[in-house]
C-alpha cells in the first residue's frame, strides 16, 4: 500500500530506554569528565569549532544522555589541538575524552 507518508520518529529523549554502555565506558576511561559543569570554555576556544559545527559541550551533553546519533561524525571533526584542556576551569582532560569516545565508538559500534 502506498501511504504517502511514514510514521515520524519521536525526538524526545527517553532516559529509561537509552543504552549507557558507551558513555559509561568513556567516563570510566576519563573520570575527570564527571567534574564538568558545562561552562562552555572548551567550545569557546575550539579551533575546529571555528571552522566546523564541532561543539565539545554539545558532544558531552549528548554522550551523557545516551544520544549517540551523529556522535561518530561529530567527534571526527576534533583536531586534538588541546586548547580546550588549557582553559578548562575544572581540569577535565578533554583531549582524552575525545580519544576515549573514538575508542568507545569502535568498541560499541553495534549500539550506534
Amino acid at each position, binding site marked *: 500500500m502506498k501511504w504517502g*507518508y511514514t510514521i*515520524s520518529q*519521536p525526538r524526545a529523549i527517553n532516559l529509561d530506554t537509552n543504552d549507557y554502555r558507551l558513555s559509561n565506558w568513556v567516563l570510566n576511561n576519563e573520570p575527570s569528565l564527571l567534574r564538568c559543569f558545562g561552562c562552555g570554555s572548551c567550545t569557546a576556544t575550539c579551533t575546529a569549532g571555528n571552522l566546523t559545527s564541532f561543539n565539545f559541550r554539545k558532544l558531552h551533553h549528548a554522550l551523557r544522555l545516551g544520544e549517540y546519533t551523529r556522535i561518530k561524525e561529530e567527534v571526527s571533526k576534533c583536531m586534538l589541538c588541546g586548547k580546550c584542556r588549557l582553559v578548562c576551569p575544572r581540569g577535565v582532560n578533554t583531549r582524552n575524552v575525545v580519544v576515549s569516545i573514538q575508542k568507545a565508538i569502535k568498541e560499541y559500534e553495534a549500539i550506534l
Partner: protein
Amino acid sequence: MDTPRTIHRNWKEYQKEIADDHFYYARSCIRQNFFPGSETAYLNILRNDLSLDVYDDPKHTTCTGIGYHTDIVPLETTMTVIARQFALMTEAGYENFLPSCVTSFGLYVEILDMWEHFPELEEKARENLYKATKREFNKPKNLVHTSDLIFHYREKIAENAKYSFVDVKTGQPLKGVEHIGCHYAKIFPSKGIGGSEFPYVLAGMIESWGGTVVDYPERRHCCGFGFRNYLVMANRGYSVANSKKKFESMAPYKPNFIVGNCPGCAMFLDRWQYTIGEMEHKTYGPNGRGIPVLTYEEMTGLVLGYSPWDLGLQMHQVPVEPLLDKMGIPYNAEEKYLGINGKNLGKPQLPQNCVL
C-alpha cells in the same frame, strides 16, 4: 502549600453550569461521517431515555472549525457563520446551545470570548449576518458540549443501566482510557468540567458505570489530528506519531477500551491503530489485536442496552467484540454488516499485515 480552602476554591473554578433541558443541537461534520450511529443514538438517549427536549435543526451548517484551524477560512467568515447558527437557535426559540463536536465547542467558546473582549467584532458579525441573511440573534445563555450533558445525567443513566463496565466472568471493573479533545478545555479551562488539568467529564461516566480509569503518562497528550498535521498528506507521519506515543504509553496498563469525547480523536485513535499495524506490524491490545475505541455516545448506548449494530459499532476499524464479550452484551455476528432494512452493507477489506 494548598490548604483545604484553596483546594475547594480551585475545584469550584473547575465546575461549569449545565442547563437541565431544552437544547439546540448542532451536529459534527466528522462525527456524522465516521461514526454515523453516534449522533442518532445520542438524540435517542436524550429524547427517549432522559425525556429531554432537543431540537435537531437541518438548517445549520458546519461551524467552519476545520477550515478555521487550517487557516483556510478567515476569522470574519467564521464569526458570521457562527452568528448564523445562533440566529437559527434564536428563531427556533432555544437559549441553550449543544454542539456535538469538541472543535465546534472550542470555537463557539472562543468567538463568544472574543466578542466579550472586542464588542466591535460582535457588531461587525451582526452587521455581516444581517446584510447576508436578514437574520438577528441572541447569544446562548448556556453553551455546553454534548458530553457535558451525558456527564450531567450520568447517575440517572446508571440507574437505568442494563450493562456496566464490569467483566462478567471475573467481576472485576473494566479498565478504560479516557481521551479528552484538546479544544474541550485546553483553550478555556474554565469551560470544561475539571479544567484542562483534571478533566473529569469522561472519567466521571466510566466510574459511575462501574469501570476504572487508567492514569497513564501520556494521558493528556494530543491524539495528533492537529488539522493541518493531518490534512496535508506529507504531514500525516507527525499526526500518527502522536497517537503512537499514546498507545505505547497506555498499552502496559492493558486497557479494555478507549473512549473519546472529540469526534476527531475517536476517529484517529481508531484508524491509526490500523495504520500502525499495517506499517509496523504492531498492535497494542491482547492477542495481537487492537484496543477498541468508543465514542461517549456509543459507550452510553451500550450501557443503556442499545444494540451494538444500531449504534454503528460495525463502522469501527478496531473490532469491539472483545469488549462486548467482557461486558456480557449479546450480539449476532451475522447481523454485523446488515443495514436497518436488512440489506447487506458489504464487508470491509481485512488488514494485510495485522490482525486487529
